[in-house]
């Protein structure tokens, strides 16, 4: 009896995993190629996975994980640098958030992916854009506490670009395109 229960549990587990990843794969394909996700099967599976019992179990066990790493495309990256300015308007420091360990930097920059998704979505005034702006400003404000005499901060958000394979082979240097400036009052 116990064996049947274990078998059922493991089979259900694998089934949910396959279903949630199928939904994820369809979603990423449709988002990437701008297709509508109006299939009844897709909607039915998505509804089943969203049921509180299933979704909570998958979230707690970690089995909700989607496996589309670096797919369907490698996401664009951004770099954020902060200018710290004193009350006379003089630039006193210029830096990006610093961490002691690479793991700390890696974790912190994970949130940059959310910023990229927000800034490059069609809606320029969406809630995610507002949250991203607020977070970038908050980082600047908190960093300014450690810069003596700072009264204003300017956050510069750069899009990091490396020449494509199809570009001329002589231009193998990264470029940083400044696409967003945010003014912050240091308090």
């Amino acid at each position, binding site marked *: 009896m*116990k*064996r*049947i229960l*274990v*078998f059922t549990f493991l*089979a259900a*587990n*694998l089934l949910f995993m396959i279903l949630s*990843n199928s939904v*994820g*794969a369809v979603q*990423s394909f449709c988002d*990437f*190629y701008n297709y509508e996700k109006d299939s009844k099967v897709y909607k039915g599976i998505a509804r089943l996975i969203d049921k509180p019992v299933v979704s909570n179990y998958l*979230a*707690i*066990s*970690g*089995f*909700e*994980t*989607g*496996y*589309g*790493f*670096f*797919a*369907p*495309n*490698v996401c664009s*990256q951004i*770099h954020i640098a902060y200018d710290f300015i004193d009350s006379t308007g003089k630039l006193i420091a210029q830096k990006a*958030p610093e*961490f*002691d*360990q*690479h*793991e*700390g*930097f*890696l*974790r*912190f*920059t*994970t*949130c940059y992916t*959310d910023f990229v998704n927000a800034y490059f979505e069609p809606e320029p005034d969406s809630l995610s854009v507002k*949250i991203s702006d607020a*977070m970038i400003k*908050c*980082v600047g404000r*908190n960093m300014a506490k450690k810069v003596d005499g700072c009264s204003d901060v300017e956050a510069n958000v750069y899009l990091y670009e*490396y*020449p*494509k*394979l*199809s570009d001329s*082979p002589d231009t*193998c240097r*990264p470029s940083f395109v400044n696409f967003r400036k945010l003014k912050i009052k240091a308090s």
Partner: protein
Amino acid sequence: MKALSLTINRLVYPNPYENTLKAFSFFRLAIGFIVVFHYLAIIQDYKQLYSTSGLIDKELIALKSHGNYYLSTFYWAKVTGLTTQQLASLCMGGILLFGSFLSAGLFTRLSALLVLILHHLLHNNGPIYMYGVDLFTRMSLTYLVLFPSNHYFSLDKLFMKLKAPKNYDLLIFAFQIHVCIVYFFTGLDKSFGFNWWNGESFWKAIHMYDNSSVVTWFNWMHRYPVIPLILGWGAFLIELLYPLCIWMPRTRKIWLVSVIGLHLMIAIILKLYFFSAVMIVWNLTAFYFPFVKEKALRHA
């Protein structure tokens, strides 16, 4: 049910009992070590990420919180009267303590469960700082709650009389299927992107901003675009064909070495050390240890 189990045993393992239990024990030992070292690597930057004096205010982070509210320090701060910072420090300490218990095989299942709960508490209110390794750590800990992983190299074995485990064959088989699902969907998702077919995605991945220290290593490839093209195809074909080739005795070793090589490259180039370590452990547990004596048995 018994017939199915026998078929699985014959199909999958030459020496199921011993090898499987060794595989589970290796899994426990390795995941325990990775968890401890991972959190030791975060500890210096912990204040900037998870404390109330962190770079991003907790109220803003909470806007992005999507985890279970009851498994977050926000909820438990209200219940216990402690601050979220005190609770986060306790979680960090608890993860290091019970992670050490886990690798030592002390109260193994309970330790795995506690690390899993503490992992949720610490990360559910800071999900913006989570990435792949955290989710794979959670799944690994869930498996460690289920697996009989204390039968070798454990303090439990030393101090307690352990019962012979049951259903270990179903557990390892489910884990092996899971590893196949991971690689199949990773490869499938990549195959949807046309840039993986022309080498651009591979080129972009090895020139990401985070790997600025190694970014110039590969500039020579720009003159021979066929190389990133082949490597890009190689990466997603290894993943897509994994569920097929890892089960075939003739291709198993090649695929295992290839996929471990892929993760070593990810560790070196993309600097995702802990993620790569977890994935290598998953591969060795699922498809190395259970088959260790296959050749010897075939000759016998």
